[in-house]
């Protein structure tokens, strides 16, 4: 690592990348001929919330989707570089993206519950992966997931109602419950609060902070206040490059890079 030439990035990566939960090195992403990410290297540490911020189109969501290979679903998309999960390369041909996604869960921008009952929404993942051997076990998984997602009190009497009938904030917490029911190790959140009102947002943020105990969380957000509130580390993306990454407090109080400073003080973005 050339510390002298890239002073702002010395905190992005660890000396031993095997200590990181997720570790990316020199990740390039192309959509057809267009390059969306340029040589991104970052280490995501376990049991922390890492926020990715930056202006629209800067590549933060693209990077997030590399971490569970959701970009595989886009025909024209090509990923270069290496990404490790627990020291294991997730882009080797031997790795099954389906199994990877069971370990790296995802919560999307717009709440997207299945048009099924609340119970079936949460039970979907465990059923697919055969996590429960009996009905009672499945009930247990569903209830604890709803509890961890802070939704249990609101829905415990109507588990057989449609998930799409809940309010927006409840739907998003249902989606979080659905994601944690598979017991992933990492949860990726792609602007999870952008479709929610302030009260629902506050509940989800509170939840993210609690979930940090058990999971490693990477969250893409447009709101710098949100990044400051929920994350321990923050990465700033600009035009497909990771400009700066460091402890959230440092990024927001003492950014080292001009661009970061310009963005968080609202001069552009």
């Amino acid at each position, binding site marked *: 690592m050339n510390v002298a030439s890239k002073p702002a990035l010395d905190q992005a990566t660890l000396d031993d990348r095997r200590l990181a939960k997720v570790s990316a090195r020199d990740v390039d992403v192309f959509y057809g001929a267009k390059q969306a990410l340029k040589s991104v290297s970052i280490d995501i540490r376990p049991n922390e919330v890492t926020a990715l911020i930056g202006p629209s189109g800067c590549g933060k969501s693209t990077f997030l989707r590399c971490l569970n290979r*959701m970009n595989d679903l886009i025909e024209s998309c090509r990923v270069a570089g290496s990404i490790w999960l627990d020291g294991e390369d997730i882009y080797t041909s031997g790795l099954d993206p389906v199994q990877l996604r069971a370990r790296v869960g995802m919560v999307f921008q717009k709440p997207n519950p299945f048009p099924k009952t609340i119970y079936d929404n949460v039970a979907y993942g465990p059923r697919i992966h055969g996590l429960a051997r009996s009905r009672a076990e499945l009930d247990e998984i569903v209830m604890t997931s709803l509890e961890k997602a802070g939704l249990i009190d609101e829905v415990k009497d109507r588990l057989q109602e449609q998930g799409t009938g809940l309010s927006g904030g409840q739907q998003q917490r249902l989606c979080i419950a659905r994601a944690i029911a598979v017991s992933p190790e990492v949860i990726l959140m792609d602007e999870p609060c952008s479709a929610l009102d302030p009260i629902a947002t506050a509940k989800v943020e509170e939840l993210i902070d609690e979930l940090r105990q058990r999971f490693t969380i990477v969250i893409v957000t447009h709101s710098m206040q949100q990044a400051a509130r929920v994350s321990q580390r923050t990465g700033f993306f600009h035009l497909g490059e990771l400009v700066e990454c460091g402890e959230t407090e440092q990024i927001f109080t003492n950014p080292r890079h001009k661009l970061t400073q310009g963005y968080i003080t609202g001069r552009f973005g």
Partner: protein
Amino acid sequence: MQLIALVATLLLLSAVGFHLGRRRAAARSAAADRRPHSLPVYYGSYVALWSGLPALVVLLGWLAFEPLVVRSLVVDSLPLVARELPPERLGLLMNDVRNLAAGVVTSRDVDPEMAAAAETYLRLKRLGAVAVAVLSLAAAIGGLGLALRRVRPDLRARNAVERLVERLLIGASTIAIFTTVGIVLSLLFESIRFFNAVPIHHFLFGLEWSPQTAIRSDQVGSSGAFGAVPLFAGTFLISLIAMAVAMPVGLLSAIYMAEYAPRRMRAIIKPLLEVLAGIPTVVYGFFAALTVAPFLRDAGTMLGLGVSSESALAAGVVMGIMIIPYVSSIADDVITAVPRSLREASLGLGATRSETIRQVVVPAALPGIVGGLLLAVSRAIGETMIVVMAAGMAANLTANPFETVTTVTVQIVTLLVGDQEFDSPKTLAAFALGLVLFLVTLALNVAALQVVKRFREQYD
């Protein structure tokens, strides 16, 4: 020829009215030093419409009633003997009069009375043509003048034009509705006539179909049995076979196209599948009769099954192929309409592509798929050509697909083909069959549209 000249003149008058209206609106508002209520083009359209529409009404009225009026006037001029002929004979006589007037060979010798009638006919025709020209031109000019006088800056020409345009649109849509109503009513009245001859419960629940009625009492082989159950059973059997072919093939190809096919593949496959819908059904018919049916018969013989050379199976299979594009195209549309976010949610949980399709995409698209299937069924029930050619005519009440069966549509065709008298139960039965068929397909279509609507509401 005269008519074309007349219409051209009327159009010209409207165009003139348009210009006059526009100019007058400008002139008047300038004189009164006021801004006109509407744009000049609306004043022009206002005058043009008022000059064109009344004339059009006159013209259409003449086209509709002229033959009737002329005919009754000519009949009145005929000698009493001719006037008291039965209606059919009178009709023939009138045909001859018309032919004579047109200088075409007539079917009987020309007598002075007929010549006089033809003379009257020609005179009336000419008079009518002049009258309509005068009347419609008067209406056009009168309308133009009246409308032009009303053009003032405070005339709400835009609102008036918009209202007229709305009426025109309503008129256009009522044409379709009235045609449908007319068809249904004619079906209904003829069916009632049929049910006067044959009790309705015999028709609906009778097990024997043998529509040849005896004209003379000594005729044999004409029992005149009108039990429609074998026909509906045959229709049902063939539709069932057709759906058994079209449903899996159509659905699976839709799933392939929507979920698996790369974009370029889809761009080739989808139009190719839809070509199937463009093949005329009569081509399917001889494909069924000349290729599929003999093949099935030979294959059946090899397996020791008695397959007749015209079988429900052959017709059903070919009909199934015909409706594959209906199923696959609608299913493809509704599957593609399932939000991408649902797929991503499922894949993001570690579900495979096929698990996602089975457990999320297809259930979410199910109402739309069912709607498409129902539309395909009503299409299969109404299909005629394939069954005429490949399924046979014998009204067997059977569930054996290797036997010859017949369907409602085939029987309607055979009842009405050839020289027929339209007052025997035999021909009237066709209307009753048509009515029941119409009701069944209507019910299916309504159900299908309801289901599709429910699906739409879910994702808007």
